[in-house]
């Protein structure tokens, strides 16, 4: 049985540093190359020594595919390509190619300049790495080499996010990256056709959640923000520069306009303008509504949202601030958090998932005292709210995607083990599909059926179709294709035996048997033949039996009756060796009559 082997180096029963190795048909593919935000040590990058203990991994990897620009999916890319060593092709969509290097550079600065991290990749390495990137367009079929084909599908989630279909020979896999099955304020919903892969590798961040309607969540969010500024509080919303931030900005902008609110809203990212420019230029990747109206009004030109200055942190009065990064693990958002956390009229709203080890994760789990390096302890008095605004598919969405693409097996990654188990059960129950969720470093082997394409001569196919349609309709048995496979040079073709012999330059040797049975049946020979015809038809209802000029024939079997009107008749049964089963059966039938 041919196999597909999958080993997660990251995202196996875990969220963060997605990196999955896929082997099929002699090809090795790396799916995503992310980093873990919760760690500062070597655990932040996938363990590439799994691929080869030392030296570059180029000989062992045929291509790398990046699903989207989030750092937990591409953050380790420059480390992998420039420090571990990989010079092969890296595939991603155009927006991802545009935005990923900006986020990588931003993260590098935070790690190296603020945290003093050593042994990190440099700006130059990011540039060198991006030179290896080949940008792909949605639905375009890309041949990585003669045998390896990939194709991107729209995934929603963030600008440029894609799911990838990967095929080698007759084996295929779909890797979803992160995706979203419901459209939001700026992106459309993920979509895939019925590509029936052998395996679907799906993220499962929200495996157990069936989220309430989007509208409710938005209303809830706006209510909380509004209440907080009404009581003079400050609202901190930690976000990543690109993605959810744009959706929440559109939401607040329209609300401020409608409610005529005066409290300032700041977006504290140097990237904002640049980020919004990307959205303008890749407007074809946003949803229908934005695409339709972009000429008249650009959704990403905000009236109420102003750039933030660090000096505003201590300003009196209410305000709303969007600040990076989203999980409160470093940078400005953490700085503001430290300043505001002791005041109970303030609020922090975490609009996305926070990985373990981050401050975001800690306060979401109810921690009211946070200890920082240098023994600094911060008391959290401000209210902490969590709003699931990250655009991941929930359980319903994951089930929907399975229904769309009809995979033979499912694998869950990028989620928490307990939640995965729950969803696994559901998938098995509802679709009766094998479902896997390997841990990091654990290899999962999936057997796949093989279909080998061969050429077939058109006359052979046509003869079969003709024969099949001639069968009695009430007794249509399964269609059978029989022929001779001619293997010559590099070609293989299935054809009729005579055609094959001719092509091969040989002659058949036909063996024919004729046996005589004596039957006692008075009356004319024709009457006997008639009786035999009815008998044979009755016993062999699945075959097409013909009766002409007193002889009965089916396939190569021929039955003839001879004799005068006397009692005894000679019945000749004749057949070729290829119809031995049928011929001997009919002979047996006649023998039993004569006795």
């Amino acid at each position: 049985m041919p196999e597909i082997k999958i080993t997660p180096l990251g995202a196996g029963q875990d969220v963060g540093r997605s990196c999955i190795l896929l082997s099929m048909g002699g090809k090795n593919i790396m799916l995503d190359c992310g980093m873990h935000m919760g760690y500062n040590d070597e655990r932040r990058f996938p363990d590439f020594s799994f691929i080869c203990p030392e030296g570059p991994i180029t000989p062992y990897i045929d291509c790398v595919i990046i699903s989207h620009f989030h750092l937990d999916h591409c953050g380790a890319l420059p480390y992998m390509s420039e420090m571990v060593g990989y010079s092969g092709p890296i595939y991603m969509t155009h927006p991802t190619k545009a935005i990923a290097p900006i986020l990588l550079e931003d993260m590098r600065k935070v790690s190296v300049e603020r945290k003093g991290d050593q042994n990190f990749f440099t700006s130059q390495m990011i540039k060198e790495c991006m030179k290896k990137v080949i940008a792909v367009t949605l639905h375009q079929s890309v041949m990585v080499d003669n045998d390896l084909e990939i194709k991107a599908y729209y995934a929603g989630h963030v600008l440029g996010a894609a799911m990838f279909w990967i095929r080698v020979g007759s084996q295929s896999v779909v890797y979803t990256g992160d995706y979203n099955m419901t459209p939001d304020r700026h992106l459309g919903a993920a979509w895939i056709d019925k590509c029936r892969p052998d395996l679907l590798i799906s993220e499962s961040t929200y495996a157990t959640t069936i989220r309430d309607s989007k509208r409710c969540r938005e209303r809830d969010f706006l209510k909380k923000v509004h209440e907080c500024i009404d009581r003079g509080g400050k609202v901190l919303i930690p976000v990543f520069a690109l993605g959810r931030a744009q959706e929440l900005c559109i939401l607040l902008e329209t609300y401020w306009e409608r409610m005529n609110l005066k409290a300032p809203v700041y977006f504290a990212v140097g990237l904002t303008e640049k980020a919004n420019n990307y959205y303008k230029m890749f407007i074809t990747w946003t949803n229908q509504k934005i695409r339709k109206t972009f000429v008249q009004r650009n959704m990403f030109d905000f009236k109420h949202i102003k750039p933030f200055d660090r000096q505003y942190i201590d300003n009196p009065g209410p305000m709303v601030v969007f600040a990076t990064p989203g999980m409160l693990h470093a940078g400005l958002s953490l700085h503001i958090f430290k300043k505001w956390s002791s005041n109970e009229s303030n609020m922090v709203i975490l609009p996305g998932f926070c990985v373990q080890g981050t401050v975001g994760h800690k306060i979401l789990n109810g921690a009211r005292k946070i200890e920082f390096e240098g023994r600094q302890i911060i008391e959290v008095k401000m209210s902490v709210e969590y709003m699931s605004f990250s655009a991941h598919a929930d359980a319903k969405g994951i089930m929907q995607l399975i229904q769309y693409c009809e995979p033979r097996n499912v694998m869950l990654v990028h989620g928490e083990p307990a939640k995965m188990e729950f969803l696994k059960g559901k998938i098995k129950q509802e679709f009766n599909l094998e479902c896997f969720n390997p841990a990091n470093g654990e290899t999962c082997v999936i057997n796949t059926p093989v279909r080998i394409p061969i050429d077939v001569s058109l006359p052979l196919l046509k003869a079969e179709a003709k024969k099949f349609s001639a069968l009695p309709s009430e007794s249509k048995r399964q269609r059978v294709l029989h022929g001779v496979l001619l293997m010559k040079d590099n070609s293989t073709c299935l054809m009729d035996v005579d055609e094959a012999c001719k092509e091969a330059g040989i002659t058949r040797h036909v063996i024919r048997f004729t046996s005589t049975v004596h039957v006692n049946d008075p009356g004319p020979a024709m009457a006997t033949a008639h009786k035999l015809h009815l008998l044979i038809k009755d016993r062999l209802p699945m075959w097409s039996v013909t009766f002409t000029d007193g002889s009965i024939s089916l396939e190569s079997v021929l039955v003839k009756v001879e004799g005068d009107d006397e009692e005894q008749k000679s019945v000749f049964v004749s057949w070729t060796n290829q119809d031995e089963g049928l011929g001997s059966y009919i002979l047996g039938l006649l023998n039993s009559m004569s006795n």
Partner: protein
Amino acid sequence: MKLYCLSNDPNKPCHILTFKEITIMLDCGLSMQSVLNFLPLSFVASNKLLNLPFWTPQNVSEPELEGELRENCDRVFIDSPPEFCPPLDKLIDFAQVDIILISNYLCMMALPFITEGTGFQGRIYATEPTLQIGRLLLEELVLNIEQCPKANFANQWKNFVHKLPYPLSDSFKPKSWKRIYNMSNVNASLSRIQMVGYNEKLDVYGALQVIPASSGYCLGSSNWVISSDHEKIVYLSGSSTLTTHPKPMDHHALKNADVLIMTDLTQTPISNPDGMLGVLCVVVGLTLRGGGNVLIPCYPTGVVYDLFECLSVKMQELGVSNCPMFFISPVADMSLAYSNILAEWLSSVKQNKVYVPDEPFPHGLLVKNSKLKHFKHIYSEGFSTDFQEPCVVFCGHPSCRFGDVVQFIELWGNNPRNCIVFTEPDFDYIDALAPYQPLQMKVAHCAIDTSLNFTQANKLIKDLKPSTLVVPECYTVPPVSAPNLTELVIENNPDRTLIPYKWGEVINLPLKRKQAQVFVEREIAQKIVPVEIKPGISLSSLTGTLKVKDNVHNMESLEKIKDPNYQANIQYEWGSLNVTEFLQKLSQDGITDAKVEPSGSGVMIHLQDEDALIQIEENCTHVLCNSDEKLRMRLRNMLMHCLKKF
């Protein structure tokens, strides 16, 4: 396989290809040459046009034609909203068309004529830029004509075509001409388009695969590869090997086709686009410096993007950068905006700009700096305040029959310092200007056509190596404009069959399918035991259950057949029987009374005790016996031991 030619203009192609019981329309171009016979549509009453004298042919009584024809400078024009010559609808019922493939936005203007009110139910495939920009062209056309309503549609003149002067007398099928469609037809028709990406494999009813490949001609332009398991047909429409703003042409996908259909080659076979661009820059510079205005009748998309970019640089160099460029079209704003969001369809130079992020085209910047100003119409708000002379005006339509160009010719036509420059190759500039004559303004002809010229086309064919090449007949003879230039043809070559076609013809294409494809399940494949017959040739009989779904054939294991009489592993004997060996086997088995006699071309073995005859010839053996099955089985085994089989 058949090819129907429905358009008489190879640059506005429309074909039908039938293959494997699927009917495919290749492009849906609309020839607009007919509009040159009509008077221009002006939305401000034009004294000159209103006062043109009526014209009546000799021996035709006045009332029938009253008012339909007018004369100017020895040319006769129809005074009516323009009519168009849609693709031929007599050869094929459009309700039968399964799919339409659109190569580029200039080859889809007849779409509403084909898909609306005809019972058409198929799918249309086009790339995103083709759809978005094509929509702009269709909308502009409808708006330009609708904004100048005329009370009467002239129809009588069609009964007197033979009595009309040239070129009206030469009109192509005037009775089939139709008025333009309306906006709801446009919307309905375009809503049927399914957007596709380059190299996207489209499945057509399981029978065919269709793939669009970049053609380098304009934003989103494509050629099409149509293939079954064993045949490959390439349809090559507007293509360019020059480096301009679109993504370069993809040659690789088009190679080694069984049939290559090639159309939409250059309309300016003698001049080269770079040279023309140079002339244009000089003309613009000279005119502006002399205080004159430049009028460029054009489509609202395509080469104009390159002209904005190129001219702004040139005007800077020539010190006339204070003269503004005006871009006037009902869809000018949309066109500028769309061109800057379609980065994935641009050349790599332009594409790389969005990674910065910069806009791929500089016209955003030109607009910001007031070097380029765009308006929907000349009567749009703000135009009169912004208007300043001398200037360069880009506006439609290149036929000079409708759109704002009509007003500009009226405005500037009498001043010899002004200049009108023709850059679009679709219309003859002398015909385009005929209703306005006499004109004082200068006329320059700098048609820029980036599509393949004959040298490039012949080189491409050599590279692509098709078995059969199918081209419009006019490409096999030198162009009418240069009958002596015999190199301006598609070359005939013994390596391939060249089939010319013309309007209204149905061509049989030489494609005899001999093979199909079947997918064999692994279980069956494992049972295959190849028998080497000769060095390099092996045979193996193969039997399986055939499952056919969506035209895809699958062969699965036979095991499930319940009929015991069915032989699952039929094999075949071959070669001749060695009689001596067979006799040895008989005696080893205890049959010693075999009597051998020559018989015909072979021998007859008579087994007297067993009452059986075995007749052996070169290619067959016949065993005749009574109903003693034991004996027959013994003989059968011996025979099969003596023969080779597969």
